[in-house]
Structures are given as structure tokens and as C-alpha cells.
């Protein structure tokens, strides 16, 4: 299996599991509507969106490696900020 296929599978997995955790997090927000829980849900949503965006980028093949890396880095940074704020709130 070449690296391109592995990357596709990896990001598809990130999109699927990110979506499952996002759904779970939104159910948790309904049960306990606190700012922290809402931020956790947003964090998982970011992971799912990252999986979809980068997955599409890889699948379409038109995007350069640097662009995909930049998109991934932007999502990771946003995720870290969201989770950092979530740990500060209750």
C-alpha cells in the first residue's frame, strides 16, 4: 500500500471517528449544557472537519503538500486553543 492510500484511509478514519465523537459530545451538551462541554463538542467537530477537508484535498489530488500541511496545522492549532479554553472553564 503506498503512502497516498494510507493517508486517504487515515484521514477518512479521522473524519468518521471525529463525527462519532462530535455526535456524542452534542448529546452530552444536551445533558449538561456547560461552556466546557460545548467547547469539547466544538473540538471534536474541528477534528471531524479536518478529516473531511484534508481527506477531500488528498482524494482530489490537486492540493500541494504544503497546502495540506498548512490546513492540518491550522486545525490542530484551533483544536489546542479550544481544548485549552475548555480546561479553564467549568
Amino acid at each position, binding site marked *: 500500500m503506498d503512502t497516498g492510500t494510507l493517508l486517504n484511509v487515515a484521514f477518512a478514519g479521522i473524519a468518521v471517528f471525529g463525527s462519532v465523537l462530535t455526535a*456524542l459530545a452534542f*448529546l*452530552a451538551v444536551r445533558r*449538561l449544557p456547560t461552556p466546557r462541554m460545548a467547547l469539547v463538542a466544538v473540538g471534536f467537530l474541528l477534528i471531524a472537519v479536518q478529516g473531511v477537508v484534508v481527506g477531500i484535498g488528498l482524494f482530489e489530488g490537486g492540493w500541494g503538500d504544503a497546502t495540506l500541511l498548512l490546513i492540518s496545522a491550522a486545525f490542530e492549532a484551533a483544536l489546542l486553543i479550544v481544548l485549552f479554553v475548555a*480546561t*479553564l472553564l467549568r
Partner: protein
Amino acid sequence: MVDEPIRASWAETLLTFIQRYPGVHLREIRRRLAIPIGTLDYHLYRMGRQGLITVQFQGGYKCCYPAVVPEIGGPIPEVDRKLLALLRLPAPRAIVLYLYLEGPTAPAALGQTLGTTGPNLSYYLRKLEDGAILVRQGQGASRIVRLSDSKQVHRLLLQFPPLPETVVDRFTRFWSELHP
């Protein structure tokens, strides 16, 4: 005729659930067992008519109890029903468990520990006080709340298990218990 076995299976599942978790309310049963509300109402009515269970309104909830509990050798006494129904709700259960484990506590400290709002805490404390489950003592800053009968709480906690946690419950608990 074709769906008869399914109905029988639902009734069986429902009865087992009520026997295992007495005091559980209608909406919680629907959530846990995923039985349509109409079907659930029908089976509860039928089981009530057959004398297998009793259904009573408590604090705005339709709570279900088995007609006979083998360990007791009869129905659950009225005084225990009141507490059991409240132990099936998350907020009152948390209050009762905290007071059981930590002893008499100031309402402010209780609200802070449980992470609930003042009005919410006050509402449930009044409900528990009305049910003679806890008593408030003192005035102003020296006011404390305590269980009126901790032996009853101990006995009921041992006798009837809490409702099992769902995936969403575990997720909520995990993320809400993280502290900076």
C-alpha cells in the same frame, strides 16, 4: 398475531427492568429500553391491571415499582418509594449521596461541590425536605443540611442498584471532572 412474540418480549424486558430499578420513571424507561412511548404506556397499564407493578405520580414523574420485591416479601413501603424515586434523578441523587458520604454540609458548599446553580439546588433541597429526606438546621451563614435518616439511605443504596451509566453519561462525567 405476528407481532405477539415481540410484545411479549417487551413486556418481559420492561418487568425485569422495573424489578431491577424500582422507582424509575416513564421517560427514563423509554430512553433506556427504546420502547415507543405508546407501547410503553400500554404495557405499564396492562401490568398494573395484572397486579405486577404499581405506577404512581411523584414530583411530576410517573414512577414504576414492582408489586412484590422478593427480598422484602411484599411491596416497597411508601416512605422508601419517595426516596427511591428521587434517587433515580441525577441532581437529588448527587445531593443525597454527598450528604450520606460527607455528613451535614452548608448549602453553599453543597452547591459548589455539585457544580449546580443556587436556584436549582434550592429547588431540589426543598423537594427533599418536603419528602422528609433531609432537614435544614440553623440560620444564615451557620445553616446546614443533613439527612434525616442516613440508615434508610444506606439500606436503599445497598438494596437497589443505581441505573447503569450510558455512554453519554460516561462522556459527560469524564470531561466535566477534568480540572485545570
